[in-house]
């Protein structure tokens, strides 16, 4: 049962947008956000769910929501930024996700379940936005795959120099470089690296979050890691200086 009255959603939208309104995409975002609010409210009403709940328990819920916002907004925004890759899209992703969240909170006492539930909603919104961009099925370019001869033997340029990751991490810009290399992978491969290696879910959890088979997740993960290895090779070989 939804726990937020329309006025609350409206206020939330207005204030959120006032904060987001400082960049060039402000007007577009206001429109998008208000559309989402009306859509969410419309869907709730058409499902016969009343949003006009005014009582003490609702006030208690509002306090709980404040706690949730304080606790979870940071990682939600960070997740959207990593998946969607740009600040404006990330904020749109969070806004869309917030609507779903405030219109259908589960039992708030189970914090682990809450976090998993929030994560799934935010990720699903991001995936929907990626699908709209139409690049979710893009394949890995041949340049980012291992090469073998006709007998299945690896063709690997010789390694005259190998810089260990521990030494590379001393560089201040290394995290930004690694993230920018991950950005270069096609979306479906980038996502498995984000979930498995950056967010550090297990391979099985990654498969579940992306709603793909475990075998498929393993294949994507291997290709993604092999691709990332090729992208990072100039740094490891010391060829970038």
């Amino acid at each position, binding site marked *: 049962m939804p726990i937020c009255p329309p006025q609350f959603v409206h206020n939330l939208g207005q204030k959120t947008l006032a904060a987001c309104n400082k960049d060039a995409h402000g007007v577009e975002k206001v429109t998008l956000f208000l559309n989402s609010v009306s859509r969410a409210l419309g869907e709730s009403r058409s499902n016969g769910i009343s949003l006009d709940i005014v009582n003490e328990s609702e006030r208690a819920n509002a306090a709980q929501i404040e706690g949730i916002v304080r606790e979870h907004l940071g990682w939600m925004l960070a997740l959207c930024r990593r998946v969607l890759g740009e600040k404006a899209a990330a904020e749109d992703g969070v806004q869309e996700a917030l609507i779903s969240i405030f219109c259908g909170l589960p039992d708030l006492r189970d914090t682990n379940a809450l976090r998993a539930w929030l994560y799934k909603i935010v990720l699903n919104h991001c995936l929907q936005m990626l699908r709209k961009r139409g690049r979710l099925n893009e394949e890995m370019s041949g340049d980012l795959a291992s090469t073998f001869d006709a007998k299945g033997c690896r063709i690997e340029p010789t390694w005259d120099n190998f810089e260990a990751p521990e030494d590379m991490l001393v560089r201040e810009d290394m995290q930004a470089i690694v993230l920018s290399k991950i950005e270069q992978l096609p979306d479906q491969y980038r996502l498995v690296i984000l979930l498995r*290696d950056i967010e550090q879910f297990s391979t099985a959890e990654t498969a579940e979050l992306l709603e793909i088979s475990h075998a498929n997740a393993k294949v994507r993960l291997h290709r993604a890691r092999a691709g990332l290895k090729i992208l990072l090779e100039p740094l490891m070989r010391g060829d970038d200086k």
Partner: protein
Amino acid sequence: MSLLTFNVPRNIKGVVAKLPMMIDCQGFEDFLVDYFDGNLTKHQRIIFELHLRFCGECRDFLRAYEAAQILARKTGEAVQLNINNAPDDLVTAIVSALDKPYS
């Protein structure tokens, strides 16, 4: 790696790969995700390590492939430390909307 290793020349590597318990470099890649997840069976692990003993190219590949994962993971850990850096104005805006939900 503490294994006794040597480099089989590429012109005979294809033949070696056909021996019992041996795989070629392409087959070696199928083991990698389970190897790093710690999910190889004892039998698979023996096959995996046997290949590494005679294939210098795959040893180099594995070292760089693992390094890429370490870099991604360390980057992830740093990112996790920064996730509380949500824009103050966004947090304030949402929370202030919550302070007076019925106005």
